[in-house]
């Protein structure tokens, strides 16, 4: 099992830059999520760790050893493909034993090992079947089996649940996470689904436009986004952005939104010009009175909570409130923001301003 360090890795395809100088560390035994919209470079990053692409520059360390330019066969990393890529001309047993045969393992040992893995995954009864006729879930299990049978240093998974239907996905996600906890192997997992990332990951790297936007624990990323992109990409509904113009200095713990004072975590850096007041929907309260007011545009009932869309002087806002709290379309209500959760952004750069809330998280982001 292993720690993976990505250092200033860059990948170009001709003129196109798929990944710009990126650095992050995947600790031993972590379930690590690479999250981002399609085309952001997350799959390229994963493929570089596995050796399916070679970085244009930068280094990749596996257990302290630089492996950036080595072929995949010399890295001892397993890969689970989105489309599974089971060898179609072989049966399940042969698929599972294929990585062992390449190591020259004796036949009896191969048989025992495949048997053990098949038992873990509950696919012993289909070992003799051709892979063509398997269900999606069984294919997924065989693909996982082929990855774990060799006991590699780390697993790479490229949207392994992407090809499954929604219902089964949930189940497989749990199975995957349980398998990981049982084996304790370092796992790098690519997904574009922020819920999946939050639900399964020990840590998340959020990528966008070939750049690492932020990396850290799911909760840190959710509560203290480093950029407006992260704040917008993670969470559903996304973080609210209230635009305002002003000048704020180091140590300020209040700003003015439409001339109303609003509490914020004390700032560690100053800024001026177009700024953004970022607040999560669940940190907004609605009152009948209050000085900062907005008009209810729509409500969405979600069971225990409801999402209320409001028109405020600083833009549209979505609030998540208890579903038994009355909210009528057309009504004007007062808004209260939970000041200690607010993140301020510089609108031009999109970066979060450092404050007492997020300085610990942003330091290594």
């Amino acid at each position: 099992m292993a720690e993976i360090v990505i250092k200033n890795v860059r990948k170009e395809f001709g003129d196109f830059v798929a990944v710009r100088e990126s650095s992050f560390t995947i600790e031993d035994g972590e379930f690590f999520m690479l999250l981002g919209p399609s085309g952001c470079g997350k799959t390229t990053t994963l493929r570089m760790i596995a050796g399916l692409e070679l970085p244009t520059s930068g280094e990749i360390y596996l257990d302290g050893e630089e492996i950036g330019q080595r072929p995949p066969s010399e890295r001892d990393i397993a890969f689970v493909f989105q489309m599974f890529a089971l060898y179609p001309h072989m049966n399940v047993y042969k698929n599972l034993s294929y990585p062992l045969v390449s190591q020259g393992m004796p036949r009896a040992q191969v048989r025992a090992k495949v048997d053990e893995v098949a038992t873990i995954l509950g696919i012993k009864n289909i070992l003799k079947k051709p892979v063509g006729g398997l269900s999606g879930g069984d294919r997924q299990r065989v693909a996982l089996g082929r990855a774990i049978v060799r006991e590699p240093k780390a697993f790479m998974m490229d949207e392994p649940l992407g090809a499954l239907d929604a219902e089964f996905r949930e189940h497989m996600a749990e199975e995957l996470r349980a398998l990981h906890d049982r084996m304790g192997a370092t796992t790098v997992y690519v997904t574009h689904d922020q819920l999946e990332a939050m639900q399964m990951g020990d840590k998340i790297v959020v990528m966008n436009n070939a750049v690492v936007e932020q990396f850290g624990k799911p909760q840190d990323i959710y509560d203290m986004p480093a950029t407006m992109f992260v704040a917008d990409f993670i969470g559903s509904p996304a973080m609210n952005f209230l635009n305002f113009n002003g000048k704020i200095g180091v140590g300020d713990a209040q700003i003015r939104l439409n001339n109303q004072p609003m509490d914020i975590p004390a700032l560690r850096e100053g800024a001026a010009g177009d700024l953004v007041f970022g607040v999560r929907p669940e940190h907004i309260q609605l009152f009948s009175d209050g000085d900062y007011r907005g008009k209810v545009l729509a409500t969405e009932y979600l069971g225990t909570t409801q999402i209320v869309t409001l028109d405020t002087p600083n833009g549209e806002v979505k609030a998540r409130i208890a579903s038994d709290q009355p909210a009528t379309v057309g009504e004007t209500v007062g808004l209260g923001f939970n000041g200690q959760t607010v993140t301020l952004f510089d609108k031009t750069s999109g970066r979060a301003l450092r404050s007492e809330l997020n300085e610990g998280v942003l330091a290594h982001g």
Partner: protein
Amino acid sequence: MSAYSVTEPSTRSKWFAGSLVILYALITMIPLAWIMLTGFKSPSDAISYPPKVVFEPTLEGYVNLFTTRTRQTQDFLEANPPQNWADEIVREYDMVIVGPSKFGERFLNSVIIGFGSTFLSIFLGTLAAYAFSRFKIPLADDLLFFILSTRMMPPIAVAIPIFLMYRNLGLSDTHLGMILLYTAVNISLAVWLLKGFIDEIPREYEEATLIDGYTRFQAFYKVVLPQAATGIASTAIFCLIFAWNEYAFAVLLTSATAQTAPPFIPTIIGVGGLDWPAVAAGATIFLLPVMIFTILLRKHLLRGITFGAVRK
């Protein structure tokens, strides 16, 4: 509501389609049947009008195809009784068999040249197609177009340059020369067809093989080749049919040593009158290898014809 399905054809249209196929099969197979039957007719039955459908079968055509014969005097015939059943057949025409004809040799030439060039086309074609499909090759599109452009004219248009070139290189009337020539004509077809098949094989299979600890070449022959088997088989049929049937270059470039069966069969006509049964026998035997080869690979051939239409 009646049982009605959009995708499943109705019984009536199935019958209609079935009858069309049978009709087409009859039209295309009658000449074949005709040739095969003529091979078992006597020369007079072969040219009788109206044509005989029912006749007394004889192996005369086949005997004439495989042997050379001379006419002998009655004294000689009486002094030398027929040695076997074939000899007996030719006695009817006061002839004796004096040796084998060149047909066996020519047929063997066809086998060597046809299968040899097919093998070479497929071997080179697969490697080239894999490279074009998987690797970044400078000017790949131009190269592919260049390869394709060799098919844009009838090969016989370059007959004279090839004739002169072969004479100077000493390739005229050699097996190697014919194998190289047919390979040159077939390779463009092979590269293009096989590239299509290999493009259809997801790269993930090879990547999985690499991850599983195999080399690129092992990934090629252990995973890509079995996956491309269908494409290779159907491409091989197309290449073989061309090389097997080719006539013009064979007439032009081969004579004593490397002559193939197609230019040889018509020469039978000149020996001892218009011997149609022998010609028909030659055509029948000539048909067999391609027929067997095609029947063996017919499943693949169907996929080959419709390839690319439906993604697997």
